[in-house]
């Protein structure tokens, strides 16, 4: 998930080709106060004219309690991005956005519930109520953990090692898994430290986060490499799925592979590994 400043035409034009699975066209932090209106128009026109192909288009709007938030949602939703990213998310905020989107979709004649929401969890309250935040809208498809603002809210220091967000990562990963939405990790902000990026991404993956946000396109390939399944994992997953098909044909509910029992969790994991492998171009679809 790559952040692109909404005020930069060149980057908006090239956002789709940088290898990210999704792009966040940012109207919030990356845009200065004096450029809020022009960036909003620019992002709207970009979505209308540029072919972002298979890349998920997410727009980060300003918080609804600022003078820009509602205008952002109102203008951007009408050109149908895939998803809105709502900063400083809490239950009330998400409900408000959900209602706004309901109204806009109705006015424009779009399918109801088509525009999705990702909640940016970056306050202590948001983190502690993350399950309710997710449940606040049926549009919710994921949570993005915002480590910088969260640690600032907590009054603690943000470090490269990231021990201070250990709990937040755990919490987000667990709740998202429980409620079946994506759990996306906070960006790694030192864009020249590739070793640090790999360590940080590996840690996030090991805690159960399913993706990572980036602020520099040069980080994308390394992150994909961390999340990518290994060849052995892919081969094993394919064998599991083949065995499953075989078992289904034979009408067996439970079956074994290499002497090990294969049940639903193993099958689900194999499915998600193959899907990830296909998405990263490691294998044919």
């Amino acid at each position, binding site marked *: 998930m790559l952040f692109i400043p909404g005020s930069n035409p060149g980057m908006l*034009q*090239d956002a789709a*080709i*940088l*290898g990210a699975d999704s792009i966040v066209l940012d109207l919030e932090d990356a845009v200065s106060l004096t450029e809020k209106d022009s960036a909003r128009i620019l992002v709207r026109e970009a979505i209308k*004219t*540029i*072919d972002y192909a298979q890349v998920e288009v997410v727009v980060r709007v300003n918080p609804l309690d600022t003078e820009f938030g509602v205008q952002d949602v109102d203008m951007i939703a009408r050109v149908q991005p895939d998803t809105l990213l709502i900063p400083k998310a809490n239950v009330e905020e998400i409900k408000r956005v959900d209602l706004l989107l309901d109204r806009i979709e109705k006015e424009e004649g779009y399918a109801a519930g088509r525009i999705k929401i990702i909640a940016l969890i970056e306050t202590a309250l948001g983190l502690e109520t993350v399950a309710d935040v997710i449940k606040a809208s049926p549009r919710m498809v994921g949570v993005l953990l915002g480590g910088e603002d969260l640690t600032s809210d907590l009054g603690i220091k943000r470090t490269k090692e990231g021990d201070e967000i250990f709990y937040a990562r755990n919490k987000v990963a667990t709740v998202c898994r429980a409620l079946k939405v994506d759990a996306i990790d906070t960006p790694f902000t030192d864009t020249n430290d590739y070793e640090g990026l790999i360590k940080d991404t590996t840690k996030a993956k090991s805690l159960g986060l399913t993706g990572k946000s980036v602020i*520099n*396109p*040069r980080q994308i390939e390394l992150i994909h490499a961390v999340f990518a399944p290994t060849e052995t994992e892919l081969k094993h997953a394919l064998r599991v799925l083949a065995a499953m098909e075989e078992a289904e044909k034979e009408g067996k509910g439970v079956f074994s592979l290499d002497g090990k029992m294969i049940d639903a969790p193993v099958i689900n994991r194999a499915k998600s590994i193959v899907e990830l492998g296909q998405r990263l*171009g490691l294998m044919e679809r």
Partner: protein
Amino acid sequence: MNPGDQKILGSLDEAFDRLGISDGMTISFHHHLRNGDYVLNMVVEALAKRGIKDLIIAASSIFPVHTPLVKHMQSGVVTGIVANYISGPVAEAISRGELKKPAIMQTHGGRARAIESGDLHIDVAFIAAPTADTYGNINGVYGKSACGTLGYAVADAEYADKTVAITDNLVSFPACPIEISQVFVDYVVQVDSVGDPKGIVSGTTKITKDPVALIIAKRAGEVIKASGLVKNGMSFQTGAGGTSLAVAAELKEIMKRDGVVGSFASGGITGYLVEMLEEGLFRTLLDVQCFDLVAIESYRNNARHQFMSASMYGNPHTKGAVVNNLDIMILGATEIDTEYNVNVTTGSDGVIMGGSGGHSDTAAGSKLAIVVTQLLKARLPIIKDKVMTITTPGESVDVLVTERGIAVNPRRVDLIEILSKTKLKLMTIEELKTLAENISGLPKAIKTSEHIVAVVEYRDGSVIDVVRQCL
């Protein structure tokens, strides 16, 4: 020159007296001091003071530092320019029609050919010499204005009627090493400074950090790998631009992974290629000009970092130029058309901003000439129906790699067959053109008058295109 004769002269004026410089002569310069060169301005200024008119300046390249030429063009001191690359105010003035005769734009190999064949007759060659001895032996590796090899000055020294070395580092006889020999040099003049070191080298050459350029480089690397040319004994050349260097970085990884040792890398040499030499990825470098301090130092100290003249580099009429043995060449483009013709001479505004340099020489010689460019630059699509100026003919360009897709010249049926068996997504150049125009729209064509301001010569001396004055 007889025993006992001296070559050292007290001043430029003394040299002019001895040389008998008169109106209408052709005088030549090399561009190894690039945007730090003092010599061209110094000589033309002194000749202007003597009231000389109608000079033809045959410089291998002209840079912004040569801006004083503009006033000499306006006053009639200079009425003709022959060069392989012209950028900055002189290029703009030529484009405005301020040079009396059309400028002649050559290639690096073509210039050597023209000089050696007599097509370009030089009356006096003024050779900026970072080091010269009292008897005219020259090298570029020592002195405060050290620039490395002097590949572009060789034909001038050898074929001009008279050759003058201008140096700010006069050493006692004999200089060591000797790159341009005393047998070609008539006089030596000592001056305070021949150049500004800051303009001579860029200090460091860096790989681009632009993510789009890095994607292009990655794709180019994939094309190179898929072409099957990455094998022991391979050869490679690229420019010093950020994207070109990024392609070198991609190639380096591929060569390391596959355990390949190349025979040579050539052209203008950067620190990055030196690094590849030192890591054993190439057996030797063939260097016509050094782009940075690392390259200069390597050329001075490493016997495997070898000198080549412009003629050896790209002259099509020798008994074999280095470009003929080149496997892979990475090229840039200001514009490319659907016939794969490339323009690196004029900019999107129709004004001269460069020229072939070695572009057409290497494209013609190499087995795989890859043009790397962004599909859109500053809102403008790069692929046109017809380029404004043809620098390099499409028949010598094999592949276009952009951030949004790869197109292979339909003439290269063999390459299309090889590449279509890989995962690389190939498109036609027309499809890429449409893709770009869908984003940017179609820019209005630039209108020109009938007045020809420059003639573009292909490497064999034939006229490949002309540049007309913009309206």
